[in-house]
């Protein structure tokens, strides 16, 4: 899984019907110090994440298993809202 912060969302009225009712969020990957690191990704939300929240997401075929057994066309799904990132020694 990958750590990131929700920085926005994507609205599509015309879309695959299975995506109805599911939020499509823009997520910025973070490094251990919480700084942006790498390119933003577009992820389907499965836990009620909102803008500004730190989350982690799952990639690949497994990302659709958040709605198993429904087949959902996603390869990037937010699966947790992070309360705390504990990195002893700061790893600066």
């Amino acid at each position, binding site marked *: *899984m*990958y*750590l990131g912060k929700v920085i926005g969302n994507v609205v599509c009225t015309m879309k695959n019907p299975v995506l109805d009712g599911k939020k499509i969020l823009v997520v910025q*990957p973070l*490094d*251990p110090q919480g700084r942006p*690191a*790498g390119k933003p990704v577009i992820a389907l939300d*499965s*836990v*009620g994440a909102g803008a500004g929240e730190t989350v*982690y997401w*799952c*990639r*690949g*075929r*497994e*990302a*659709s*298993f*958040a709605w*198993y*057994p429904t087949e959902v066309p996603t390869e990037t*799904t937010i*699966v*947790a*809202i*992070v*309360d*705390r*990132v*504990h*990195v*002893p*020694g700061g*790893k600066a």
Partner: protein
Amino acid sequence: MLIGRVIGEVWATQKQPSHEGRKVLYVQPLALDGSDRGQPILALDAVDAGVSERVLVVTEGFSAMTAVDRPNSPIDMAVIGIIDTVELVKDA
């Protein structure tokens, strides 16, 4: 699979049920010379690894799910071993 070092842990109460009851380890992948290799990742812990330990991480969903025996779940990485030594044979 990849070799990594556990640099921390991530806590999340709001998450997919299949992630319950498992530590979420923050792992920095390592090159063979021990230097950092790419961005850190998050993996569910299947062997009770702790911070600063060198670990073996499987980065494919089906294997990760099997390692934490949570089939059909949105899990794409798991720590499946704690590494004691890595032995490289010279001019092999």
